[in-house]
């Protein structure tokens, strides 16, 4: 399942599409998706596509990764889940192949 993270507040952030097997998200310029906000760690989390499942994993970030209101280290994503990266909220949506 290919997914994207759609921001709940589109003025704050861009949509994140998981277009490759591993997407690194953070404030550092080397990240695949760069979010230049102080609440986002340099390497905050990564999204991975394994088999048909999308996984999110915290990389030891300061403000953490939250799934449906609970802080998580690693979680499989389902359509409709709400993800918080730092203070940014996203909704998980399916991408039609």
């Amino acid at each position, binding site marked *: 399942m290919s997914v994207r993270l759609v921001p709940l507040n589109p003025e704050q952030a861009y949509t994140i599409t998981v277009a490759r097997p591993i997407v*690194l998200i953070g404030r550092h310029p080397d990240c695949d998706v760069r979010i230049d906000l102080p609440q986002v760690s340099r390497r905050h989390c990564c999204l991975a*596509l*394994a088999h048909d499942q999308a996984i999110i994993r915290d990389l030891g970030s300061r403000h953490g990764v939250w799934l449906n209101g609970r802080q998580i280290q*690693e979680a499989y994503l389902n359509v409709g889940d709400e993800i918080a990266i730092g203070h940014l909220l996203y909704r998980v949506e399916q991408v039609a192949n």
Partner: protein
Amino acid sequence: MSLRLVALDEGSDIPIDRDLIMVGRHSTCDARLESLRVSRNHCCVVNRRGSLEVRDLGSTNGIRINGRRVDVGTLRPGDELTVAHIRFRLEDCGTTNDNTVMATISTAPSDDLRRPGTGDPDPSGSELKDRAKRGNQPLVRADAPEDDSPLAAAVRGVLPAELAGYKIQVIVQAPENPGALPKDHDSKIQAEEDKGPL
């Protein structure tokens, strides 16, 4: 399909038993490498049906695939991954049972093994390697079937002569319950397997 990153230098293998494996020195990593040259979050590995996708996480000493430094790359069975200075080779351990590990010894059993009671019956792996360097001729019993693998031939060497015609199949199996290892001789092999990172 059961993939495994086999350690070519020091340290343990990394079994690919999860979809996403973090490799690094930090305690939260799935595969911990205790070397100061390895970064805390060094790289992550994603299982992609028969191949692995690897990504460097901004490590100081980087990752290499088949000797070439990369940020992102794909590993297929036979490819070599270097994490800082620690080398691994991706191997496909087969499809039958995730707990079963096939071990192939590339050398032959020693003379001691062929004649029970005439010396050390349990030579270490390094001794076997030394013998392999000196000469790789198969030291099987004259009455052993020709299709014996070197491992089966080694076992045949310690069996009584009456069993010479028996077919030998060697299975090296990791324990299903690592906490409760039996204390018999066979468990030595299992204990070796149990030293894995997870």
